[in-house]
């Protein structure tokens, strides 16, 4: 039940929220830049990874809600 204890801690929830905000905000910024200047972001980095990180964070948050 170690995982349950970790998931129950508030620190993890806070960390989860911070990472989600950072990743999702970066993704939105990347989409805006890419819309106005195609290639500005996509030439160097694929922002889909940021969306993936955001989704994983949402899944973890939902998982935590279900456990606690």
């Amino acid at each position, binding site marked *: 039940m170690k995982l349950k204890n970790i998931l129950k801690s508030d*620190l993890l929830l806070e*960390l989860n929220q911070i990472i989600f905000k*950072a990743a999702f905000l*970066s993704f939105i910024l990347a989409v805006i*830049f890419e819309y106005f200047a*195609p*290639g*500005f972001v996509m030439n*160097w980095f694929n922002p889909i990874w940021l969306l993936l990180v955001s989704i994983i964070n949402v899944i973890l948050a939902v998982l935590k809600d279900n456990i606690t």
Partner: protein
Amino acid sequence: MRKSVIIKIIRIFFALVVTGGVLWLFNMNFPMSRQIEVNAVLGQDKPMISRLGPDPRLKIEDDYQIILENPVYFDLRSLSWFTQSRIEIVYQEWGRKLVGMAGKVGAEWQYLEIKPLMISDYGDGWQQAVFSFDMTKLYHERNIRRFIISTEGETGSKLKIKSIKVILLR
């Protein structure tokens, strides 16, 4: 250490990561040197430069790109503030000659053909042709511009390409 302090440190860290990411992107797109060098990876699509096409006119042999028929093309995605480009092709002629390059200037089959600015002979059979394009004159769709490599030769003749380098200039 109190929990609130840890949270604050993590928050500052991620804020710095996001700001750093944005600054890095600006640095990559507005380089101090006012130029970007892009090397094509032969046979592979890369974010800025595509592989050569169409496939039936090409093949890869020992990591070299072989042109079997004329013409072949590649796409380049570059930002609008790069107004000039210099394209360097290192090649070897096996019966097929490199005639020139062309940039797409219209939505349909409209191309502006140009001859190489200079051709250097490396002495070991390899040659380098340098082309210069005014990017503002080229047609683009969402910053993607198409270039054609024009060759001539009989059926069965080949042109072997070692590298394609694009230098974008502001």
